[in-house]
């Protein structure tokens, strides 16, 4: 992971959260998650204006022979969806922290961010799982 990921928060379901402005965050999946999933062939994102709830499924990511839920790390309303992923789901594999982001969300409970992991904690969490 590079420096540009230093500001990110992570969930134990391997999503990252980037604070954009007051109450607004961008969500994606981590480098570790995209590696585990392998070649991603399709993303089913929520739609703009959809309400999403922390720790509940907000969409799915498909690889050739697997489908995984995307568990939302936060609660709120979807305000922007990465439409590029529709035609180019490979962006998640190639640039999970940049062009491969999933959605932007207006938070309904900013306090939820406090329960997420920082980069070091997330690294430690992954290492634990690897052992």
């Amino acid at each position, binding site marked *: 992971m590079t420096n540009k990921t230093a500001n990110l928060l992570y969930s134990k379901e391997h999503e990252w959260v980037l604070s954009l402005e007051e109450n607004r965050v961008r969500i994606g999946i981590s480098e570790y998650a995209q590696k585990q999933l392998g070649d991603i062939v*399709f993303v089913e994102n929520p739609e703009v204006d959809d309400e999403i709830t922390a720790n509940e499924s907000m969409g799915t990511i*498909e690889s*050739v022979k697997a489908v995984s839920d995307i568990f939302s790390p936060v609660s709120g309303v979807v305000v922007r969806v990465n439409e590029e992923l529709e035609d180019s*789901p490979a962006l998640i594999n190639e640039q999970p922290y940049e062009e491969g982001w999933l959605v932007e969300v207006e938070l309904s409970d900013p306090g939820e961010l406090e329960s997420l992991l920082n980069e070091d904690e997330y690294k430690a969490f992954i290492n634990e799982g690897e052992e």
Partner: protein
Amino acid sequence: MAEYNHLIFEVSRPGRVGYSLPKSDVESVNLEDKFPKHLIRDEAAGLPEVAELDLVRHYTALSNKNHGIDNGFYPLGSCTMKYNPKVNEVVARLAGFSRIHPYQPTETVQGALELMYNLQEELAVITGMDAVTLQPSAGAQGEWTGLMMVRAYHEQKGETRKKVLVPDSAHGTNPASASVAGYKTVTIPSNENGLVDLEELKKHVDKDTAALMLTNPNTLGLFEKEITEIAAVVHEAGGLLYYDGANSNAILGKTTPGDMGFDVVHLNLHKTFTGPHGGGGPGSGPVGVKEVLLPYLPVPRVEKDGDKFLLNSNYPLSIGRVKGYYGNFGINVRAYSYIRTMGPVGLREVSEGAVLHANYLRKRLDPYFESPYPQICKHEFVLSGSRQKKLGVRTLDMAKRLLDFGYHPPTIYFPLNVEECLMIEPTETESKETMDAFADVMIQIAKEVEENPGVVLDAPHTTIIGRLDEVQAARQPIVRYIKEKEEEQVKDGVKA
């Protein structure tokens, strides 16, 4: 001769025909006079135009690119790829079976109804059930039918139970069927012997449990020895037991789901009773029930009154229809023909042969692969490619290497609870020589993994096509041929 590699649309030439109809002998009709203009087709459907020989060459070429049981050994686990008898094909094509309409008056189809009735009765004996419906088209529809009956049964008692339990080794269809029948699935982990963990089961069985779905022998090829205890636990809580009959080839004439304590069962006639598989279907998935579920069977039911056979829809508690007409009759004819050919002794010997073959092949392969469950198996067994994985070769690679020797590989990566799984079902119709030859090749591949892994990793070497890019296929799906596009590409090519 150069390899034939064309789509039928690419060999089409305007003006060629492959049919012969008599000239119309009645007055012609002007479409514009009969139909509103906007409902008349403005552009002919782009079907191919070929002469009959072009057609025959095309499909013969395609068939030559396909591997069936008649081409060679096909040990695809849980699919029971046994020999498909030719006499069954002859029988199903008799005009008295193939050229009858489902809505003919019942007095004109007594032979068909008698066959269905007899088949129902005999399948009831084979499964130890009280009645059988032939309506479901295949196993998945059978599962759903069975669960809809379970649901009707509980609802009739004024209960809305929401849970269906399935072991972690279950076919993926079980939870999917539970879901479309409106149930939540709860997965029960297996114990270290690959069997249902009775203590775990007890923890999950309660007043909300509608049914437990079980395959016995399970997908690891192991018989659930504690089945009567399992049944008692579920029944005591008011739940029912569903038997997934995909693995019935192991138990014919030895035991029945009814004796084991099951209340409802589906069979896959295209598996155990020589369908055939048809490249993916049609199948047939009859469902048998114990008396408690009789009122809920789909309608119409085929019944006998004196020496007459009839269709009866007068069952107010029935779940209704699950499929059009009366099921996949043509497949049921074949299965009936097979049962008539084997009789009670033959069917028992089928299962004895299937189980003997699986154990023989398992023991021959045991020293060369990880064998997660080394006890005796039933009609199929699982091996793990974990030893080979450590050397950098995966089960998928070994499966592809088998293609070079003319074998269809076993089922791979299923069940999910076995790492790098190979699931092997030799069936009773294969000779010892066939199994020995296959074992020799498997052992050779295991040695190649150690000595020359490249040859396995790059496999297959001898097939007409290499490993295909499935990622591209799923990312930008092309699921139909589009003529304009091809022509544009050609034009672009010319321009460039």
